[in-house]
């Protein structure tokens, strides 16, 4: 059983660290996430799907690559506010970046760009980073498979 399954009984594992309270940037990305949506099979050059085995969160991410840069990016995310906000911020960071730059985006970058996130939500940002890497992997696989770089 999960100790966390009942909010009655409290869950501040990170105590006495920061309280579970999101800053305005995080709240903005939660309420108005950037790049929500899907790219059609026609549009997408890479696709990543990752799940967080820890908490059941899930993220799908699509990229369209033009001239080695991420021209378009879209995501759908099932998960907690941390998952949604970090997913959104990740796509905002990745958009327009070169593949190499995009690959180098870390979960810390995402958290920093959001101006911080509660300690116990930090793992959420891994989801987006891993989804992006999965999509880039997919893009590379497809590139080698088609043998003809677009």
């Amino acid at each position, binding site marked *: 059983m999960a100790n966390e399954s009942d*909010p009655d009984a409290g869950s501040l594992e990170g105590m006495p660290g920061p309280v579970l309270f999101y800053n305005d940037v995080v709240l903005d990305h*939660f309420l108005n996430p950037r790049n929500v949506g899907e790219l059609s099979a026609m549009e997408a050059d890479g696709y990543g799907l990752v799940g967080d085995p820890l908490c059941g969160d899930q993220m799908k991410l699509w990229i369209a690559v033009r001239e080695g840069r991420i021209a378009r990016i879209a995501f759908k995310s099932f998960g907690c506010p941390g998952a*949604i906000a970090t997913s959104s911020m990740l796509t905002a960071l990745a958009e327009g970046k070169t593949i190499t730059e995009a690959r180098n985006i870390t979960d810390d970058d995402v958290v920093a760009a959001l101006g911080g996130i509660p300690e116990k939500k930090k793992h959420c940002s891994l989801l987006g980073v891993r989804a992006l890497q999965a999509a880039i992997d997919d893009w590379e696989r497809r590139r080698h498979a088609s043998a003809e770089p677009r």
Partner: protein
Amino acid sequence: MIYLDHNATTPLHPRALAAMEPFLRECWGNPSSPYRFGSEARAAVELARARIAGAIGSEPAEILFCASGTEADNLAVRGVACALRSCGKHLVTSAIEHQAVWNTCRALEAEGHRVTYLPVSPDGVVDLEALEASLGAETVLVTIMHASNETGVVQPVEEIAAIARRRGILFHTDAVQTAGKLPVQLAALGADLVSFSGHKLYGPKGVAALYVRAGTPLVPVMTGGTQERGLRAGTENVAAIVGFAEAAAVAFAEAAAEGRRLAALRDRFEAEVVAAVAGVRISGARAPRVPNTSSLSFAGADGESIVLGLDLAGICVSTGSACSTGDAAPSHVLLAMGLSAHEAQGSIRVSLGRDTRQADIDATVRALAETVARLRHISSVRGETG
């Protein structure tokens, strides 16, 4: 703010606070002190004990005060298990208990006890046949909650009490979520031990009671002085005890009428949600429930995100599960009722209370419909799009 999380905690009733004030200001003596100023505090504690006893239909001597529902549960479960260690080391509980009972059972397992965790039906009701089958010569205690804090589903504790009694086995019930909500005499349920907590019935935080039927074997969890007949050491929290008694008196007196009012509001809330949002599942809806609680699962939306969405709209509800510490898993209660992990993850708990009005319900349904729609739009998991 619309507060719909009364199963987590409740505001302090103004009458309870008023009852506490003299003990925070003037009558601050130690009830164990041997002079009149101490006796005044002692008298207040004993009057509170008598009032609580009156409210639940017990003798005053059958009420022990302690500092939380958690402590009452610890004292009941550990106290009986340790008192009867030489008689047997088997405990029976359910898959849906609060952590205060569950983790105490787990701790006892680590110390050599054997524990059976009874399954529940899809409606969240403990399986009585499984209970009968689990009892053996080694069984010293059955501990099954009166109602679930997550779903509000009321367990057949009278029948459980009868089954345990026939076998000569002690029975504890955690009534933290029913005390002051159901118009029943807790001491008449047939249980040998009953826990209930102040801050869940408009009393102060930091105080709770354990009803212990006269003659029940029990050893203290908190050792030290001889307060509470040697069964719970530590200087009594006089003000909190007095406030608890006042709040309990009000809550028990109003339970029947307030219960009818809340059940009507809750039922209307659920009907409105079902009408406004597709893909809703209400857990335990067909079972008897405490009147104020509703456990809702929304396919394709995460409970914590719903909670935050509502919070930003000024509405307080809680999750049925929480993805919060990295080791979080979906609610064990909802999983035990057969929900999938995703369903459990998409759950929230709405629990009404004394200040809840129809307008609060309506506003909540509107905000809920909006939030769920927005989250489903973002979601990578198929939900209903209604």
